[in-house]
């Protein structure tokens, strides 16, 4: 009897690993196929075989057309595809993490005011005439200030920490939104105001390979921390009871906030405000694999990559003029959210 009972533990462990693999591998495959297919999508007039020859030979030919195609594919489309996947994965994983740690399926990556703070940072950058990289840095700084403001408000008062954090986020977000309105009001309506408005709509059109290289380490750090914290997020999502399971919820939550905020701020700094992805994708993930964050986080990250890539392809190819990505995600995201709320009975 004993050997049978001993092997049961390893069998159960194997079943879990297999289940995780069976869900994640096909999704990863879909993402890879979609990313490759996205290299072929665009308005530039070129046949499939021309594009294929440029992609497979990495542009060794000297003809002008091939060089043009090569630069379009490798300098415009490829960074954009990477950016869409990274931003989608980051927003979705941080959304899933925020929802678990705040024990609330309706919170999104903007819960601590990071979007409004990032908006103010970007607007200041635009007004001061900073370079694109400078604007990214000021966006990062603005987002960080808003989150620190929310944490400060939550920490100076006694009471329900979770409620205070959400309230801190609301207060900080509202404050930065009003500052943003003030900056927009004062901005030059000929060039600065349209630039700020366009930035706020969210877009990946300006992302280059160098931007990806700069933000990649931040995305990797944030994603690695969250992907290894599935168990921690599960236990945090039990609320106060989690204290009896051997964790320090305050310390753990701060750590998770740091990782999730790193992801959301980095996303905002390269893509502007992309709404709904971080709220909806975790819900789709839960419908597919349930709420266990050990599986939900990687699944949300990959699904987020797939969905944002799809949305970005739509943004740049559906019409003759490119639509800002934030608008596409909102237009498709809102009806999807209504649909999921109904199907999942509020879960």
């Amino acid at each position, binding site marked *: 009897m004993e050997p049978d009972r001993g092997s049961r*533990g390893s069998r*159960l462990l194997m079943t879990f690993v297999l289940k995780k693999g069976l869900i994640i591998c096909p999704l990863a495959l879909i993402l890879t196929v979609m990313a490759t297919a996205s290299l072929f999508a665009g308005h530039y007039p070129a046949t499939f075989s021309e594009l294929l020859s440029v992609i497979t030979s990495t542009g060794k030919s000297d003809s002008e057309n091939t060089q043009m195609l090569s630069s379009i594919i490798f300098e415009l489309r490829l960074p954009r595809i990477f950016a869409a996947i990274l931003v989608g994965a980051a927003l979705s994983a941080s959304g899933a993490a925020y929802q678990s740690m705040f024990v609330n399926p309706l919170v999104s990556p903007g819960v601590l005011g990071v979007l409004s703070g990032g908006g103010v940072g970007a607007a200041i950058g635009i007004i001061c005439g900073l370079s694109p990289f400078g604007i990214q840095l000021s966006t990062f700084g603005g987002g960080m200030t808003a989150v620190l403001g929310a944490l400060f408000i939550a920490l100076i008062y006694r009471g329900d920490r979770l409620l205070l954090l959400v309230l801190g986020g609301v207060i900080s977000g509202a404050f930065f939104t009003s500052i943003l309105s003030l900056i927009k009001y004062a901005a030059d309506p000929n060039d600065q105001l349209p630039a700020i408005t366009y930035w706020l709509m969210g877009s990946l059109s300006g992302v280059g390979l160098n931007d990806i290289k700069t933000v990649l380490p931040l995305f990797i750090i944030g994603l690695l921390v969250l992907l290894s914290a599935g168990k921690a997020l599960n236990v945090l999502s039990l609320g106060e009871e989690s204290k009896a399971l051997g964790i320090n919820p305050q310390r753990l939550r701060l750590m998770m906030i740091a990782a999730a905020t790193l992801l959301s701020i980095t996303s905002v700094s390269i893509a502007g405000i992309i709404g709904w992805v971080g709220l909806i994708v975790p819900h789709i993930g839960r419908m597919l694999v349930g709420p266990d964050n050990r599986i939900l986080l990687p699944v949300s990250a990959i699904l987020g990559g797939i969905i944002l890539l799809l949305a970005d392809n739509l943004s740049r190819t559906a019409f003759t003029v490119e639509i800002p990505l934030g608008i596409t995600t909102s237009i498709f995201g809102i009806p999807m959210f209504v649909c999921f709320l109904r199907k999942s009975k509020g879960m």
Partner: protein
Amino acid sequence: MPDSLLEIQKLCFKYPHSSENILKGISLKASSGETICLLGANGCGKTTLIRLLLRFMSPQSGNILIKGRNTKDIPERKLAKCFSYVPQLQTTTFSYSVRDMVLMGRIPFSGCFRPYTKADHKAADDAIERMQLTSLTSKSFMELSGGQRQMVLIARAIAQDAPICLMDEPENGLDYGNQVKLFHHISTLSGGGMTFIITTHHPEHALWLSGRVILMKDGLVMSDGNCDECITQEKLKDIYGINILVNAGKDGSRYCRPSIYA
């Protein structure tokens, strides 16, 4: 004299915005395998005592010692290996499977950032089997009935393998049949050496368990002893302010009956 498993020394606690102490110097000792029922009127400090034991809050004064060691100095993970906890009937925001809920009892062993080990899976599976929940393993926690949910939380406490299990009104919201089953399971498990400290509003539950009873009133221990000594008409009148007859049936078993229904 060997150290008791648990010793509470002159514990005092006051909520931040309150002028009066809710616990006014509680002292007691518990040893292995005891089942202790905490009885008392609303607001007498039963739940506060459980929350202090779990270190959800810190006392203003007094000590809690487990095997002679002050729990103030015990890190979170080690403390969770001393106390497991079964809260009142509850809902969760995210509906984890029964297996996932029970596995969470193993976090004190493998931590938050390392995967569950084979031993964790085996311990969770054993606990599920012991609570006869095997057929529900893959079901979602929120789809279960109240009684089944409490059994799952007890299974989690078994998987947590702590010597002391603290239960705060575990019968709250359960139908009569499920209450009987719940206390039967507690009885069986305490026979296996686990110590239970249970707050309850029903003196009958203390009679069912026929273990030790602590009557609390106004933040103090009013009476501490076996259930024959503590569940008496006078003492129940003192804590609840009504007449409750404690009768003995033909088989000698005792039961409570409020005198207005007698």
